């Protein structure tokens, strides 16, 4: 995934081609032992309205590198306690996946658990996809009905635009 200023991608064309990203965590050849499925709708997790579990988080290094504009401040509760966090406007892209670019999103910034993690995807992003986790097999899959056109990245560039 990569991110940029929320600017030039406001009007990207979208196709109706469905796409999916499957990520095997363990043995791909194993099959699920589940023969029937039961869906349990979860609409209310019991939290007061003030407490939300929706936001995608960016690490400070990522914000600094892209030079995002600050638009607000907020409060985050994470392991270790409550922290004040800056909020930035960003555009999220998902190279090599075919998923739609999120043209404009508000993302708080705080230190993440590992230096290699630069973004933690929250429900504000997941709510745009169907996320399926197969526990017995140890795989997950995300899919999206409408995706933006795939554009090959420039030669030599990686996910961080370097």
């Amino acid at each position: 995934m990569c991110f940029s200023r929320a600017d030039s991608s406001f009007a990207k064309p979208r196709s109706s081609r469905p796409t999916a990203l499957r990520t095997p965590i363990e043995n791909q050849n194993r099959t699920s032992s589940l023969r029937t499925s039961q869906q349990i709708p979860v609409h209310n997790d019991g939290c007061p309205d003030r407490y939300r579990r929706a936001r995608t988080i960016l690490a400070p290094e990522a914000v600094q590198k892209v030079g995002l504009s600050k638009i607000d401040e907020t409060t985050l509760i994470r392991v270790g306690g409550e922290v004040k966090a800056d909020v930035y406007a960003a555009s999220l892209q998902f190279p090599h996946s075919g998923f739609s670019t999120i043209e404009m999103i508000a993302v708080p910034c705080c230190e993440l658990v590992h230096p290699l993690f630069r973004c933690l995807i929250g429900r504000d992003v997941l709510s745009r996809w169907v996320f399926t986790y197969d526990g017995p097999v140890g795989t997950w899959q995300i899919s999206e009905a409408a995706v933006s056109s795939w554009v090959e990245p420039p030669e030599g560039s990686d996910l961080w635009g370097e």
Partner: protein
Amino acid sequence: MAADQQARLAVELEYYAHHKAEWLAHKTGLYVVVKDSRVLGFYPNFEAAYRSGAAAYGLNTDFLVKQILEHEPVFFVF
């Protein structure tokens, strides 16, 4: 939050805090855009608010985009 980051939007956040009670009466739930001590406008969603702010002030400038709510939301990061 680093001290230099805290200074960014300090004027706008103070302006918001000063006017919050007044705005809660008639504009609860709307998004307000503030730059320095000037209100650009009130908008029904984040996207409309940010678009207006970016059009007015550009993309390289900080400006406040804040939803007017009685209790400031708190977000979990797990």
